[in-house]
């Protein structure tokens, strides 16, 4: 993929909407992209929010939603070196963060 890399997975103003007047896209393709990205969230929690946002529209995906997914892919291209690492023998502590939306 020769896409232009980008530093965040989603635009800051970017709440998606139903976009009922938009161009419908292939549902199977859209859902399979969501499926792959959801699998990836296990090791990349930073894309969790943007993937879940896109997953809300899989009943009737439009072109604008597909563009949002492609932005996540561009972000992943830029940050393919990141990952979680659980070292052996590390001490850990439990801290909860709560927020509402």
């Amino acid at each position: 993929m020769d896409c232009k890399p980008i530093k965040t997975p989603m635009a800051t103003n970017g709440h998606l909407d139903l976009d009922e007047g938009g161009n419908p896209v292939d549902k199977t393709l859209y859902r399979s992209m969501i499926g792959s990205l959801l699998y990836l969230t296990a090791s990349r929690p930073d894309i969790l929010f943007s993937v879940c946002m896109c997953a809300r529209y899989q009943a009737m995906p439009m072109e604008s939603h597909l563009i949002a997914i492609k932005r996540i892919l561009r972000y992943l291209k830029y940050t393919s070196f990141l990952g979680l690492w659980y070292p052996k023998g590390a001490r850990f502590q439990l801290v909860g963060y709560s927020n509402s939306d």
Partner: protein
Amino acid sequence: MKQNSVALSTVEVEYIAAGACCAQILYMKQTWLEYGVVVHKVPLLCDNESAVKLANNAVQHSHTKHIDIHHHFLMDYVAKGDISLESVGIENQLANIFTKPLDEARFCMLRNELNMLDLSNFTKKMKLCVVLVNRFCFAHHAYQK
């Protein structure tokens, strides 16, 4: 999570969200107990100070007296010392990365806080780094004792 009531204030919203988070922490505590890890006063950080005050101090107030009683189970666990509800500044609220789209600076900062590492040059340098971090944690732990 499905919303089943309309909240009247942000305090109520945050209070209910903290209650849901508390349930998750209790579950996690229980799981850890099976591995022999015992934790007390698990910090639960919430960015709404009024919600924190409400859980720590059970007073009746005209703005909060309508909150359904089952949301107040959080209060019991705070009183028992299983969890400790603390307030946190908005800039240190790690959960923000999961609830709203952020700009680049905040996003990268919170991503680092999630301990996401650069795994591309996974070399001796990295291992040394981990040894140092572990030592620091050990020293910290010893200090707390």
